[in-house]
């Protein structure tokens, strides 16, 4: 007997296919490139990411309506496209800031770039997965690559320890996530989000304890990458130990991917459990913001401080998830682009300060930067303002959208708490500014940044300011994203 297999619409996965070819090809090319010229591998990877980015962007116009393929396990909509661009942008910037750094650390290897591309592939699958199994495989592909990247400086004890901690916690949480998926399957008989939603509606399973428990487990599983409380404690150690470009990468891209997957699962899969997940996320949101900001106050190491600040930012973004309205999704989407600019920028500066024997991540390393490198200090101030959410920066617009969404949904107390937290955040961001402007510099060896790093800093710096002053283009893209994404909810 022959069964006709429906031919999947492969055109929708062209970016992913390109990514696989690029990553595999890169590894093979790497075999023929001599040790001292590994930089070339980085350039190829960067060019590839740009190409995939353009190809992905070309879908935007055609995707006013979501399209599914592979028997409904893969969906392409503007929401997925928007986040894919966030990942590709972050990956591109990370490659730029890695070029010199890897040479200083003497770990200049082709595997680094290949793993980064595989990680991006995993995230691209995550945001497009319409089936929990596909989403899970995306998460695993991303996570495995990130574990290896975090421990890439394998002769550095701090780095190895950080990677091991991350890995052990990650696989444990991955088990919980998988358990949650099986519970959803047990309760509804499907892993496909649309079908899960349909069965819940049809059989009135909104209060089914199995599903409520599964919801907890899914939140936990994705919460690790998001670094939301109580799964945030890995963040400072890993951020400090990992190679700094990877720290920058981890703080933006996997977080965005996990948020996108969370939003898709919660909005399109178990949206009828909204009363339950609202309570859960409300508590998590409040705790995450507060813990992140208060702990960041006490840090002396800039990488650790930014780690806690990224925990706090996860809390702000949860406001948008909680709001569950169009402005909320718009805010999440916008915020992640803004966050990619400012966070990559802040970490990029830490790399700029990386010299032989000095990691450049202590607050004292920033002392007197305004005198020695005035331009650098100004750029850093832009990133800090944006992180603190002060106009005229992209961070302000993003935060404004998130707060507005939460107010629209009636979460007044939470927004008040978030505003209070933003004030607390000012203090620790100000500490860096103070070190730069009000303290005198210590004699330091000459800085020698790579051209890639300078280019990356200029790009993210300009974007941070540009989209703060004139947010309209990005806003309307984010609005389209939110519009098609929320269309099917009513």
């Amino acid at each position: 007997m022959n069964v006709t297999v429906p031919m999947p619409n492969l055109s929708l996965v062209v970016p992913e296919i390109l990514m696989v070819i690029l990553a595999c090809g890169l590894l093979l090319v790497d075999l023929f490139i001599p040790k001292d010229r590994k930089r070339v591998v980085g350039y190829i990877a960067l060019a590839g990411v740009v190409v995939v980015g353009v190809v992905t962007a070309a879908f935007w116009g055609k995707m006013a309506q979501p399209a599914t393929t592979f028997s409904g396990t893969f969906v392409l909509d503007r929401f997925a496209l928007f986040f894919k661009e966030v990942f590709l942008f972050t990956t591109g910037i990370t490659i730029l800031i890695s070029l010199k750094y890897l040479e200083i650390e003497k770990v200049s290897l082709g595997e680094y770039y290949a793993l980064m591309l595989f990680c991006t592939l995993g995230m691209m699958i995550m945001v497009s997965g319409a089936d929990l199994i596909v989403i899970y495989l995306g998460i695993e592909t991303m996570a495995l690559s990130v574990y290896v990247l975090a421990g890439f400086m394998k002769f550095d004890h701090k780095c190895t320890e950080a990677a091991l901690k991350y890995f052990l916690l990650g696989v444990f949480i991955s088990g919980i996530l998988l358990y949650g998926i099986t519970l959803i399957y047990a309760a509804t008989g499907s892993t496909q989000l649309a079908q899960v939603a349909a069965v819940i509606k049809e059989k009135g399973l909104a209060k089914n304890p199995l599903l409520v428990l599964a919801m907890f487990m899914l939140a936990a599983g994705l919460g690790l990458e998001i670094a939301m409380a109580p799964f945030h404690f890995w963040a400072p150690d890993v951020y400090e130990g990992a190679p700094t470009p990877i720290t920058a990468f981890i703080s933006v891209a996997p977080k965005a991917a996990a948020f996108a997957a969370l939003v898709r699962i919660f909005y399109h899969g178990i949206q009828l459990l909204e009363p339950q997940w609202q309570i859960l996320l409300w508590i998590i949101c409040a705790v995450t913001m507060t813990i992140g900001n208060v702990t960041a106050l006490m840090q002396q190491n800039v990488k650790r401080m930014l780690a806690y600040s990224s925990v706090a930012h996860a809390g702000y973004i949860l406001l948008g998830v909680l709001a569950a309205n169009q402005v909320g999704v718009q805010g999440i989407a916008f915020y992640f682009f803004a966050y990619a600019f400012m966070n990559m920028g802040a970490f990029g500066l830490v790399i700029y300060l990386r010299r032989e024997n000095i990691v450049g991540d202590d607050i004292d390393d920033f002392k007197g930067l305004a005198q020695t490198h005035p331009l650098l200090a100004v750029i850093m101030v832009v990133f800090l303002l944006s992180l603190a959410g002060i106009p005229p920066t992209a961070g302000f617009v993003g935060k404004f959208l998130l707060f507005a969404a939460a107010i629209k949904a009636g979460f007044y107390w939470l927004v008040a708490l978030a505003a209070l937290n933003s004030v607390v955040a000012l203090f620790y961001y100000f500490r860096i500014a103070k070190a730069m402007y009000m303290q005198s510099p210590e004699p330091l060896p000459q800085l020698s940044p790579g051209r890639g790093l300078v280019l990356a800093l200029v790009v993210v710096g300009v974007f941070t300011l540009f989209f703060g002053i004139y947010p309209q283009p990005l806003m309307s893209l984010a609005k389209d994203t939110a519009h098609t994404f929320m269309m099917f909810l009513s």
Partner: protein
Amino acid sequence: MYQHISQYTPVLLFFALAIGFGVGALLFAYLVRPSKPDPEKLSPYECGIPPLISVRERVPIRFFIIVMLFLLFDVEAIFMYPWAVVYERIGWWGFIEMFLFIAILLVGYVYAWAKGALEWE
């Protein structure tokens, strides 16, 4: 409900036979043989030099990559069983699917080989 497992009856019988034979042989030998214990008989080498150090040595870490790659390619092989079962029904399309699956892993294999992961350094 459980009819399907009647097809495994021969396996069960074979299993029972194997265990029965092993246990039976030992039991039979135990009953028949003369038993005259002697400490000299129990030493590792009845007529040789007694061992000087423990024979159990630490396994070298070099095995790690080998074990890891074995595990991964074992998991890969697992997917060939269901493929073989339905190959007849899905035809060419199934062939392409499996071809891609193996092609991707082949790149990994080539990489591991070229990097000398399979060598005993």
